[in-house]
């Protein structure tokens, strides 16, 4: 097919600052200098370098999207963000009752240590769960933005992850307050809350966030193709909780059963969290390696799975 030119058949020189006369007789300077080229993706992937630069330059959008989503959710709730802390606190209390009743009761000190373990475990697990489940819905619920604007779609699950992190932060002081008060009344409780091991918390949290974000990318993509993925996810995360060292202690597993701690992507993070916040020990070498390995696997696999299917989002939403 012949190349169509709409205004004129005259060939133009590829030089900047050119001018032409329009239908209204005005001489216009064609000054735009932003050249964008859209070509087919190679191996289903956009140019990775350009994609990452665009991702980085739009990070403010993710932050603001998280802030506005937060604002919208709690705008008309009287208790508002208090539920963020109340919900896991009440759940921890329910699970604590369940676990101590099933065990046939225990002494006060041991009971309080169990409560502290469940509390920090649940707070940490819910952080990962929120990153995954909110991220899974971020693409299908961002329909209009996706249909109207070109931007790296990974910014949407990133926004969910940022929001989940903000919601996680206040739960840490709550845990500290509960443990400090508990230790005051039950000094024999075997919890070493303040130790040098706390320096490992940023590493553990960072690796956990990457792992959960990578998984969010996988589920967000699946949710575009199969809209019941997010429903299924609510059951999956419940089973995931029971399979994680939250309601039980890692020491309860022996021999090959300990493999469960590392096969579970959240296992190393949850074990390390208990190690730091309960026993005051730094994470074991296996936990440190496990954290990094799962973060890398989740980011590589999740990133590829998501970005290689980003093009489809605009036609499947």
């Amino acid at each position, binding site marked *: *097919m012949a190349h*169509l*030119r*709409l*205004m004129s058949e005259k060939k*133009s*020189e*590829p030089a*900047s600052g*050119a*001018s*032409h006369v*329009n*239908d209204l007789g005005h001489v*216009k*300077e*064609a*000054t*735009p*200098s*932003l*050249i*964008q*080229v*859209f*070509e*087919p*993706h190679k191996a289903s992937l*956009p140019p990775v370098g350009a994609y990452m630069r*665009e991702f980085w330059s*739009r990070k*403010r*959008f993710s932050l*603001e*999207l998280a802030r*506005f*989503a937060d*604002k*919208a959710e709690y*705008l*008309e709730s009287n208790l508002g963000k208090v539920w963020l802390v109340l919900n896991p606190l009440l759940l921890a209390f329910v699970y604590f009752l369940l676990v101590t009743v099933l065990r046939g009761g225990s002494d006060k000190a041991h009971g309080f240590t169990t409560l502290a373990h469940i509390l920090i475990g649940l707070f940490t697990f819910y952080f990962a769960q929120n990153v995954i489940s909110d991220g899974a819905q971020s693409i299908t619920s961002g329909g*209009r*933005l996706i*249909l*109207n*604007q*070109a*931007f790296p779609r990974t910014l949407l699950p990133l926004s969910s992850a940022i929001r989940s992190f903000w919601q996680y932060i206040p739960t840490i002081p709550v845990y500290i307050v509960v443990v400090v008060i508990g230790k005051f009344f039950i000094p024999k409780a075997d919890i070493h809350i303040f130790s040098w091991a706390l320096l490992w918390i940023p590493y553990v949290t960072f690796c956990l966030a990457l792992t959960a974000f990578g998984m969010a990318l996988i589920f967000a993509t*699946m949710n575009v*193709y*199969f*809209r*019941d*993925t997010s429903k*299924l996810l609510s059951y999956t995360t419940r089973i995931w909780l029971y399979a994680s060292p939250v309601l039980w202690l890692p020491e309860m597993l022996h021999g090959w059963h300990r493999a469960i701690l590392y096969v579970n992507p959240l296992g190393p993070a949850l074990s390390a969290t208990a190690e730091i916040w309960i026993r005051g020990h730094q994470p074991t070498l296996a936990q440190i390696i496990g954290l990094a390995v799962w973060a890398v696997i989740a980011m590589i696999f999740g990133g590829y799975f998501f970005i290689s299917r980003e*093009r*489809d989002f*605009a*036609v*499947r939403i």
Partner: protein
Amino acid sequence: MKKNRMLIDMPADLAVRIEDLSITYKINVDTKKTLKNAIMRASKGEKVRMRTVEAVKHMNLDIPHGSVLGIVGANGAGKSTLMRSIAGILPPTEGRITVNGKISTLLALGVGFNPALSGRDNIILGGLASGLTKEEIAAKTDEIARFADLPDGFIDMPVRTYSSGMYGRVAFAVAVAMTPDILLLDEALSAGDAAFKEKSFLRMRELVQEARTIVIVSHALQTVKDLCTHAIWMHKGQILAKGDAGEITEKYLEFLNVGTLPSNLEDF
């Protein structure tokens, strides 16, 4: 995706160059697009039913700066797909699109609008999504509210309290406030009453005076006729005819009335 213009053979007077563009994609034609359905099908040895859509086929087109191009055609002709491709939302399957300038789009009404948030918050969100900084968009918020004819105080009210007309007017006002080099509008001019339509037309003419480029997809042929300098008629993913907007809309109207393609275009 940005490249150095020295490396690209792009005449400076062109806003958009489309070269041998083809866009295909697959869609799931199952009524139930669920994991459960996919697993049930897999258990019976069946695959999920997919259909390949050839939305745009080997298209070539140059759009100079300062032009207003109308795109007409029946549903499924590939108009919206082409617009998304020019905006970089849907990358080509084959060929290349080169765009010279900042793009602003209004391809889906109510862009970025969260009904629980105020108009001001939504405008900021929409602006950030299109690549502006928060400060840039905040400086334009009152101008957008004025242009959209929002009653006093409505800019700080939740968007769920807006009428559908207000909703559409704000979306349009955000798109034109971005001072784009290239403005892409898909059925966006149906929002608002006659007075707002007139205001929109004036604003678009101002943009054209500033050598900015506008591409409009519309089923409202009178709008295309009134506003566009040129038009293309798309049919089954190809350009069936191009030329003066009045001439093209007449041809297309004739096709709509008669139901058959003009004899010289029957090969399509």
